[in-house]
């Protein structure tokens, strides 16, 4: 599948933005300035970006508790996200959502979700609406290998098939459901097979290789936009950090994280592929790194200095017309 140099640069910029956003959060959380629970997406960037590169603003996605990557890939404002994670009044959700509830409906981002398996039923609704709009739009449910064991996900897959809804179930198998290995928690051979058994077409792809994700998603999106029913994709990917920040990760094998970072880093794989095939110059990619680094620095700096919400704002935004 052909992809223009500009599109590649954009994809790289987004992957790098997610990576630096998450790496920086990992450091900043250590300072104690950021409250609450944070789940980092680093390692899985090629999936969010490889999927969202095929979507436009009419297409919708629902995300997970590990949602920063999906938000950035779908076009949410990076500074607004950082402000939100710092719990500031000018955050993308005015400090009311935090890391696990970032959403931007205008951008087609229907929300990160604190409940594992919370997103897929919502995505079926968005897909049913998409069908009524009749303009080829679709909806994507990002889920992990944990959510593939939730009944809500099964219900959503079946309902999508029964109603021929233009939904894509994107399963990011990072091999860990919280602190438990997929070898223990998923009883079937794989996740894609489960989707197939519900009556939809499913693909399996290496989620650490942007080019493979992008190519596969081209087929998947064409299938769904053509009205051939819902589809599923299982991405084999890796989680570089713990389940949440502060997770001691004593369930990891010896040297596992170092090995993953060496062999399975989607950013490194992207750069190697781009260099080998002369797609984007190293100079251009280095320049993007610098721009992204500046954006993240600025976001953190501004978030630190930004005002918190006012106490009286606790009462607003429950209902549209009354408190």
């Amino acid at each position, binding site marked *: 599948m052909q992809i223009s140099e500009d599109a590649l640069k954009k994809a790289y910029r987004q992957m790098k933005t997610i990576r630096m956003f998450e790496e920086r959060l990992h450091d900043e959380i250590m300072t104690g300035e950021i409250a609450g629970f944070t789940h980092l997406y680093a390692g899985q960037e090629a999936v969010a970006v490889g999927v969202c590169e095929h979507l436009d603003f009419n297409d919708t996605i*629902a995300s997970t508790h590990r949602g920063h990557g999906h938000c950035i890939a779908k076009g949410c404002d990076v500074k607004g996200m950082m402000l939100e994670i710092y719990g500031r009044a000018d955050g993308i959700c005015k400090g009311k959502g935090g890391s696990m509830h970032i959403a931007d409906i205008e951008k087609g981002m229907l929300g990160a979700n604190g409940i594992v398996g919370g997103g897929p039923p*919502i995505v079926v609704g968005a897909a049913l609406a998409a069908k009524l709009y009749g303009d080829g739009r679709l909806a994507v449910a990002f889920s992990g290998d944990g959510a593939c064991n939730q009944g809500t996900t099964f219900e959503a897959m*079946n309902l999508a098939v029964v109603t021929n809804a233009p939904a894509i179930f994107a399963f990011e198998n990072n091999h860990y459901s919280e602190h438990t290995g997929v070898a223990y928690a998923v009883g079937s051979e794989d996740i894609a097979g489960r989707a197939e058994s519900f009556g939809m077409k499913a693909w399996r792809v290496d989620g650490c290789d942007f080019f493979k994700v992008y190519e596969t998603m081209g087929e998947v999106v064409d299938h769904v936009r053509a009205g051939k029913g819902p589809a599923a994709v299982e991405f084999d990917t890796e989680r570089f950090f713990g389940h949440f920040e502060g997770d001691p990760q004593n369930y990891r094998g010896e040297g596992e994280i170092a090995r993953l970072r060496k062999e399975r880093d989607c950013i490194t794989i992207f750069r190697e592929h781009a260099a080998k095939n002369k797609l984007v110059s190293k100079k251009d990619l280095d320049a993007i790194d610098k721009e992204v680094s500046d954006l993240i620095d600025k976001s953190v700096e501004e978030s630190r200095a930004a005002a918190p919400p006012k106490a009286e704002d606790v009462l607003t935004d429950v209902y549209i017309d009354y408190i």
Partner: protein
Amino acid sequence: MAELMLREAILQTLFAEMERDENVVVLGEDIVGGMGTEGGPEAIGGIWGTSAGLYDKFGGDRVIDTPISESAIIGAAGGLGLTGKRPVAEIMFADFLGVCMDQIWNQMAKFRYMFGGKTECPAVVRMIYGAGLNAAAQHSQAPHGILTSMPGLKVVMPSTPADAKGLLTTAIRDQDPVIFLEHKALYAEKGEVPEGEYTIPFGHARLAHAGEDVTIVAAGLMVKFATKAAQGLAEQGIGCDVIDLRTTSPLDEEAILDSVENTGRLVVVDESPPRCGLATDIVSLVTNKAYASLKAPPEMVTSPHTPVPFARELEKAYLPSPGKIADAVQRTLAWK
């Protein structure tokens, strides 16, 4: 005015709103019925008769018959609502709240707040609730208390066919998630229903019966029982205000407090068990805000702290009744 059964008022309202606004979509189990059978679609037309004919008129894209998957139904309603549609989902028995609680409690109810007030989810969830048909513990409950306790939901409990029309129309046009509770024992209830455009604003109680001595507060089927009790008491020279709440969220506090300030006596009738429920909530409100007006301790007439039983005799013992309500009124009058 036309005389309609409450179930007919619901069906006519769905018809009218689907005709008025193409964004209105209905979904639920067997709301078409007969899909995938030799008998074909509309063989059933919805088990309550509240969706019969919608599929033939509006088609399968807007009248979505779903598998038995309550989480997916409510989740889909949430997703439809977030993306510009006006879904009206049906939960065939409100007891099935147990299998879709997450999508109501953690998702739909919280979208607007979690997302900083930047989203709207104009979804209606119709739930058929209540005891009186010997349907036993998992098909008879009245979960309005649980739902009313959830910030982000509006909760509606019509007691007459006219209110069913006016409140359902308002619910469908409202921009927030609304739980619309229809009592199965009221479906055959007849009453005059205004024709044409008819809406009733939320948070405005209805005075179902007027009197000077005691205030009775109720919702849904309990309004019928309370009114019957009040009519009997009137013959004995005892006057009761019967306040039909219509909506438990928002709650018309003013109507309750105004009446109690006049009567000085309060009886709250609630079909659900007594702990942490609607009755305790209203008694608390009144003792806190109209304490000086009270001439007697408030009375609660509720179901006992038990599941809903099956046998006729047991269910009768379980439910509040006009007789139990009249007894409570007499207790408040006898208190010294």
